[in-house]
């Protein structure tokens, strides 16, 4: 269970996240939606202990993330803007992560197989395509066989087959009783993956609920999103 309670994050005079509260429950995929710059990544960074909240709490199974020992065994994460160092080989990226959380080295081979990177394990990350880098990020998230996944824009750069694979994977992962929190700005894709939706705009939560509740009365999640955020396509261009 992920619980975000009244989290606020200020950078000087600017409020990036304003009194954000929501939960992500086990057995469900929760979509965290919002336009670029809405506060999604800031919220997830606070949840994972990377940024300090100005106020409020973010808990994983009732504990702040920094208090978890061997946290990768509880939470797997993909972070937007935090990728493997290009000069390092994919397998070495996974190796240092595994060692830090006392995860057996056989698990590295398993997750590389899972994401289809076994043949590229010894290739330097700078030679990976964007999709391969995303899959390496997913492999890192899965290393500790966590019961919670926190994924920031995990399908960025993936081809349609990759997106479909991730979708199926996340659905199965949640059906096994695990918690999945998935941030995205891709409405159509998210609608096909999630059970619950949290919509954030300009740092504030503007809607939370089951997918059906949010889209009720709208032709699609995208329509619901534009209606809820009172924005128009092309408005921010």
């Amino acid at each position, binding site marked *: 269970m992920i619980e975000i309670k009244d989290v606020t994050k200020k950078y000087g005079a600017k409020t990036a996240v304003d009194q954000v509260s929501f939960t992500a429950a086990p057995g469900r995929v929760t979509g965290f939606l919002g336009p670029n710059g809405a506060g999604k990544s800031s919220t997830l960074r606070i949840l994972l202990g990377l940024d300090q909240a100005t106020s409020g709490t973010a808990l994983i199974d009732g504990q702040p993330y920094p208090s978890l020992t061997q946290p990768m065994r509880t939470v797997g994460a993909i972070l937007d803007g*935090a990728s493997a*160092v290009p000069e390092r080989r994919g397998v070495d990226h996974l190796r240092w992560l595994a060692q830090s959380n006392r995860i057996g080295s056989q698990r590295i081979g398993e997750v590389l197989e899972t994401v289809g990177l076994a043949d590229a394990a010894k290739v330097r990350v700078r030679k990976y395509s964007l999709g391969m880098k995303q899959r390496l990020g997913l492999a890192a998230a899965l290393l500790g066989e966590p019961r919670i996944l926190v994924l920031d824009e995990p399908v960025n750069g993936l081809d349609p087959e990759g997106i479909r694979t991730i979708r199926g994977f996340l659905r199965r992962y949640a059906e096994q009783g695990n918690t999945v929190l998935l941030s995205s700005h891709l409405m159509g894709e998210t609608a096909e993956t999630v059970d619950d939706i949290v919509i954030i705009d300009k740092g504030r939560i503007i809607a939370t609920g089951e997918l059906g509740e949010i889209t009720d009365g709208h032709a699609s999640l995208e329509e619901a999103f534009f209606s809820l955020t009172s924005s128009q396509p092309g408005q921010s261009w």
Partner: protein
Amino acid sequence: MMINIVRSELTKAYTLPRVQVVTAALVLLFLAIQPGSSDTYREVAAGVDANQMVLDAGQLTDAATVLIGYVSASTLNAGLLLPILGAVIGGAEFRHGQLGLSVVAVPNRRRLVVGKVLATGLVASGISMLFSLISSVVAWFAIKDWNPGLLVSPNMLTAHARLLLFCLTITLISLGVTLVARRTLIGIIVSVVLIMLTMTQVVALVSPAVDALLPWSASRNLLLQDVFNGVPLTGSALHGGAVLTCWVMLIVIASVIIIQRRDAR
């Protein structure tokens, strides 16, 4: 457990080609100066008189002391590159969001920084021991007909311990500066400025006492007590060792505080 973090940090360091390149450059530089060092050791061995004294820089001096001093001097010269190693290891943390991943893996930032310091310390210690081994082998061939037992004498072992302290601290100071500044280049620039302050003797001319507090002056004080080097030292070996240790403690504490307080970006 801390041992897992240290192991992870070692893997993180030595799976980066630039760390491998800097390490190789350090070892190659040290090997490159060995022929010159060997000649110096041979000259010392050839000049020893019946009283085990040798004429060094115009003065009759204990030959064993002179030889130990030259072994130390050769490591100090190669050690000029050690700050680059510390800066490269520390600076990698701030490229491509590496620090974010590190904090996700080890959210206790104090343990993360301490683990990195210990791992970098192990790397520097390994290099120091390799230097000691190489210089011992080179020196053995040069002095085997005079006094090969000198290489395992208490005085020589003490010199190797000083070299270890020098390699360890000078690398960690640069690592700490880089962790505070968050950029490899700044870590290297600060190290070069500190070296220049000692080499140009600017501070020593104004105040030898202050000069003795600079890390490279402290390194000279630690290692070169028994070597004629044309430039007077500004403190004792003990003072030099204490100064270097204090620098490491202060910079590591500063790194921990700053990494803990700042967002992991």
